[in-house]
């Protein structure tokens, strides 16, 4: 990418500091959207800048700058030093260079087909065909097919010898259909977020996904509302994604546990003393922090503090063993953590984020799980989410449901919702699907931090059965 030589820029900085780091990020985001038969967006946004970080008097000060000429980087370093010194008058913690470990290496997203292998015109054609597949009949009142392609290059160098280059190719594909009959409106969607190439837009795969979305949107128009009950709940992986994210991931971010997020995203029901002691879920619950799963959305080699990213258990046999805390949080809390100190771009300082956080598969087939349920509901695809600031009381809604009666999937139900409290909910996890039911999802829009940052996360899960959950339907 480089529009400047980062090592030369670092060498040229002349300030009295204990440590200096430069993180250069260039990111290109392309959208191709067809809505209701016409192009809705063909856009490409390029974001480029350098984050200058300085450690002095035990404090980090930063300056994110769009002007990357050497004189401006020197000025930015001086101002960042001034911020660090001002912070030292009232600091929360005294940091040393231990917070920025020395690391060298690189990372490249895996992909088969390059971005340039698929022209803008051809991708518009495929999205238009997808739209035609989504619009099964006139009861589909609106539909869209969307391709988002993100190419990111991130380089990090530091005065203690770190030198990291990472190159990412990330894709989101999204197909959506809104069906209407009288007062009834039902949306069905299919969304993938992966580190993958243009093979994600293979026409046959795209059309098959779009057809299912359109047909199921229509199916929901004639479905009964989800019943109100306290019963067995089977969740598909594309809902488990959200369930893991909200009621495990955010609760275990160590900066939240330390209180940094209390003015915005909130605190956590988990406390520092809970690590190694809290039975977070039932014995079959195993959660991993795993930046190494092929094609998952938040794979990377190193976090933005320079820590090497590796797979690790966060919850083992239901017991909470480790937090989602990067090096700064590890030093502040004394807790073991992972390489998750990440920034949304060059213009934000890193904080603790989730990255890939997955529920490991169990041993049951999908049919065995359904057969084990006398009475319950199966739900797919999140459509509504809300949880309290301690990550306790949640209410989630899904797009598509099926009743389970006497061990079989029966009627389709619309507006399926459920609500519960995180810790008892995870302890009610009764069965886990095997690796055949394991699917990989993600989202580009995990919001957190002050100043705010939206970052990409990945979650993978098998199908899961929970007992005694409060379920209900629409208005």
């Amino acid at each position, binding site marked *: 990418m480089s529009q400047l030589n980062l090592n030369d820029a670092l060498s040229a900085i002349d300030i009295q500091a204990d440590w200096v780091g430069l993180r250069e990020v260039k990111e290109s985001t392309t959208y191709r959207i067809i809505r209701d038969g016409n192009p809705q967006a063909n856009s490409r946004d390029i974001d480029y800048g350098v984050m200058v970080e300085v450690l002095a008097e035990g404090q980090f000060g930063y300056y994110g700058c769009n002007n990357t000429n050497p004189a401006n980087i020197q000025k930015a370093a001086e101002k960042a030093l001034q911020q660090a010194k001002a912070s030292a008058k009232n600091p929360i913690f005294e940091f040393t260079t231990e917070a920025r470990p020395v690391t060298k290496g690189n990372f490249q997203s895996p992909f088969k087909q390059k971005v340039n292998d698929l022209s803008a015109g051809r991708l518009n054609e495929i999205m238009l065909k997808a739209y035609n597949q989504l619009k099964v009949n006139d009861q589909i009142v609106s539909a869209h097919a969307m391709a988002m392609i993100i190419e990111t290059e991130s380089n990090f160098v530091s005065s203690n010898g770190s030198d990291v280059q990472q190159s990412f190719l990330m894709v989101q594909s999204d197909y959506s259909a809104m069906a209407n009959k009288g007062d009834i409106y039902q949306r069905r969607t299919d969304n993938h977020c992966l580190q993958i190439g243009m093979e994600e837009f293979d026409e046959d795969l795209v059309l098959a996904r779009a057809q299912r979305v359109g047909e199921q949107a229509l199916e929901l128009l004639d479905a009964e509302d989800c019943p109100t009950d306290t019963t067995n709940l089977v969740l598909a992986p594309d809902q488990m994604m959200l369930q893991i994210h909200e009621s495990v991931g955010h609760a275990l971010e160590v900066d939240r546990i330390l209180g940094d997020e209390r003015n915005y995203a909130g*605190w956590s029901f988990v406390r520092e003393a809970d690590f190694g002691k809290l039975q977070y879920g039932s014995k079959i619950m195993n959660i991993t922090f795993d930046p190494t799963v092929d094609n998952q959305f938040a794979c990377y080699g190193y976090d933005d503090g320079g820590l090497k990213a590796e797979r690790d258990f966060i919850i083992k046999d239901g017991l909470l063993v480790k937090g989602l805390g990067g090096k700064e949080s590890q030093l502040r809390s004394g807790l073991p953590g992972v390489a998750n100190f990440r920034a949304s771009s060059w213009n934000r300082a890193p904080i603790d984020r989730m990255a890939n956080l997955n529920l490991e598969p169990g041993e049951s087939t999908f049919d065995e799980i359904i057969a084990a349920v006398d009475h319950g509901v199966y739900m797919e695809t999140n459509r509504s989410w809300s949880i309290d600031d301690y990550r306790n009381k949640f209410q989630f809604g899904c797009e598509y449901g099926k009743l389970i009666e006497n061990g079989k999937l029966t009627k389709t139900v619309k507006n399926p919702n459920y609500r519960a409290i995180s810790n008892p909910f995870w302890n009610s996890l009764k069965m886990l699907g095997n690796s055949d039911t394991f699917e990989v999802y993600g989202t580009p829009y995990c919001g957190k931090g002050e100043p705010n940052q939206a970052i990409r996360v990945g979650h993978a899960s098998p199908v899961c059965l929970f007992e005694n959950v409060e379920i209900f339907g629409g208005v």
Partner: protein
Amino acid sequence: MEKLFNQLSATLLNNLRNGEHLKVTIGGENSQFVRFSQSKVRQSGLVDDASLSIVLINDNRTCSGSFTLTGNIENDKALAMTELNRLRDEVSTLPKDPFVVMPEDTGSSREEHNGSLLPSEDVVASLSPAMEGVDLAGIWASGRIFTGNANSAGQKHWFATDTYSLDYSLITPDERMVKGTFAGSNWNQSEYEKNMAKSIAKLRMMEKPGKKIEPGAYRTYIAPAGVADIVGMFSWGGVGEASIQQGDSSLCKMRQNDVKMSSCFTLSEDFTSGIVPRFNSNGELAPEKLDLILAGSLKNTLVSSRTAKEYGVQSNYAGEGESLRSPVLSPGDLNEDEVVQKIDKGIYLSNLHYLNWSDRPGGRITGMTRYACFWVENGEVVAPIENMRFDDSIYNFFGENLEAVTDKAHLHPAVETYDGRELGGVSCPGILLKSFELTL
């Protein structure tokens, strides 16, 4: 930055070829952010950011591109021309867009609001003493925000403003919280210290023993900050005309079945405060005031020019996403100072948290209570309550269950910073409800 924008837009517009039409937008900020936790500095830094966005239209085909500006005019001119040429290469390969919005000249504008801000190096020393003795978490954001727009029809707009905000939570040792925001354009140290002292006094009220309440329907007052969060939901599957046309709005019932809300409920888009620019990314100027829901009836929706072409309706120059840019909820006649007596027996909610549509066509919203929320009995505050989940419909709490609206509207400044520091805020009063559904 205005000079840079003028030079770049002139370069691009002067290089247009026959049949090409162009819209150019700049946006950016020069900001300081200081993050506090436990009343101490957690992170502190500065950000300079600016980007230029170009929309090219040719033969009813369109595409757009944006890039980060460097601030060096020669570099940025070269980047702008490279981007224009890339768009030229792409646009001819794309399908025609029957609803493309051509640039027009409907008038130019220029507004610049110069403030008096704290020097960045003085912020920690100026803010910290008033926080002593309490546990505060929050964010200081300060500096200049700017945006501009020009097009090939000759229209030009510029808006720049200096603002600061300290958005914070105060927390008691047993984890009860009070929310505060101190914002403006001209720093006043003594006003800041008064604001913080008032919040600390409010925090003392949270030290009373708490009361656990059960799920159920309660007589409820929602203070302006909580109402502002609900009003924000109207931007997401609410008042946008496209969302109604595409069946994705909570207000479809009002359009299709003439369902009404309470006559006490009036929501408008009102730019008369001047704190946000009236022009959108097309450079179109929205009306100074537009009633959306008037005395409970849907009068207007926010209509962008693209939506207007697509559905054959009149544009009111809403932004592309048709979200509220300057919402105002009209005050009513309930004396704000008598709210607690009027509740008599029920709950007082200062703030809400994490709202989402739980059934959008039905207008149902779920979310949490947060911060200073109290149980009220015999017209007096008795005890703080633990946070509760609610799940209720706008057609209930802005409909038949809306008993009264307070007589003063308060501005709740926008403090979000995802794509840069936001401008403006929501102006709204509090609402007294006959019944509000708490579920968990």
